[in-house]
């Protein structure tokens, strides 16, 4: 389980997270939603051990995130792969560090996502790079999968491929997935739990199913309503 206890984080004068408390339940897919600057990426980076809390504590299975990095698969929003590598070289390099690398899953996903091992990362399209990042992240059997804006700037067909790949390999009850995105409509069918963030604070959280039933509306409409109310 991933837990945030009174976590605050500032970047200069900007408050990224402000006394945030929440838990990401084991074995569920949680959507981390909110507008730009809400604190979604900061939260994900804290779990990946790339940012530290100014105050409060983030724990992964009761330990500091940096200690748990072997159990975390992280997909950042930006292109973070070496452009001179081919997909095969990037896969070999990644597999060196993780005991949970699944070669069979890698080969299966490679075909599913229409990628070729000899493709050079610096020379493929943005959509193919997004698929490659997903391929390298999801080819591990990591207990925690963090995805920061996996659909950002990607065309509709590639988005469907990415979502299908996530669904295809999700191990319900075993794997905890956290997806931060603006594209709520695209991932609505995926998520079990939701956390709505705004200005570094949790505005709304709970079970996606219960929120939909309670309010009789989609998560997109719920978010619009929540943020309209908050910003008034």
């Amino acid at each position: 389980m991933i837990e945030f206890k009174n976590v605050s984080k500032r970047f200069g004068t900007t408050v990224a997270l402000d006394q945030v408390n929440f838990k990401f339940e084991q074995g569920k897919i949680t959507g981390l939603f909110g507008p730009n600057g809400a604190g979604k990426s900061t939260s994900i980076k804290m779990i990946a051990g790339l940012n530290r809390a100014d105050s409060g504590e983030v724990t992964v299975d009761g330990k500091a995130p940096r200690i748990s990095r072997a159990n975390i698969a992280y997909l950042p929003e930006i292109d973070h792969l070496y452009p001179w590598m081919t997909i095969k070289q990037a896969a070999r390099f990644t597999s060196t560090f993780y005991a949970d690398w699944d070669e069979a899953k890698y080969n299966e996903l490679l075909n599913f996502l229409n990628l070729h091992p000899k493709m050079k990362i610096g020379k493929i399209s943005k959509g193919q790079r997004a698929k490659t990042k997903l391929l390298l992240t999801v080819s591990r059997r990591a207990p925690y999968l963090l995805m920061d804006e996996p659909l950002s700037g990607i065309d509709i067909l590639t988005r469907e491929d990415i979502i299908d790949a996530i669904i295809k390999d999700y191990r319900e009850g075993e794997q905890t997935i956290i997806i931060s995105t603006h594209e709520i409509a695209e991932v609505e069918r995926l998520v079990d739990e939701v956390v709505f963030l705004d200005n570094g604070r949790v505005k709304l959280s709970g079970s996606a199913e219960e929120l939909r039933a309670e309010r009789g509306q989609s998560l997109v409409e719920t978010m619009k309503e929540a943020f309209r109310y908050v910003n008034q």
Partner: protein
Amino acid sequence: MSTSKLKMFFGLYAKDMRESIPEIAVVATVAVVINVIFYLRVSQPESAVAPNALLLLIIPALMVMGLAVFLPLISSFKLLGREWSNNTVYFIMSLPVSGAMILGSKLLVLLSQYVVGTLIAGMTGLVLIWNVIPEIIRFISGQPHCFSLVLLFYLLSAAFLIYLISISFLSQIVGRLSARFSGLITALVFFLTLYIVGKINDFTSSLNIRMFADWYTTPLGSLLTANLMVLLTATVIFTLAVAIYNRKVEL
């Protein structure tokens, strides 16, 4: 899939080594081209007897050796800095490895670059001298402790490079702690560390000379002590760089 710390270290080393191939190729090409040019000049009948023939042999050797020695230091800024400029630092920092492994593998790559570069420069220089004035090599190799002195001098230059690379890593990491003026902070920390270490070194050297006066009178002894002192200083600076990387660097 099996994995080990050693495998991870060599995975990082191989990745960085691949990125250093252009620098090694530059040293090799420059070494061969310069030595061939100078060989063609001194091998002409009128040049072979000229009084500046020896100078014509030493100049290319020094030029290529200088390139082989200082290129790894310049590369140290490129090798670490481009992880940030290419955003690959997100990949590196999310790996289950410590700063010691990340910086250690880069240090080893730069040292490999130094060894390969100086070997190419040294071998091509020796071939040139051997072909033009072989007496020089016979004379030098006949001197007592020749091999030990050359080896210790080479090790001292390698130790000095490790020391400079450690300062380069430390200054870049301190620079990355700030979102603004990162380059300026890096430059300031680099020169400030050189200055402070220089001052400390002046003090400890005078202390060592007084304490180990007999030992210092032999060239072998003073070279060995200098090697150890430089390596010890480099270790302290490298450890500091790793500690700051592990505890303070964020994205």
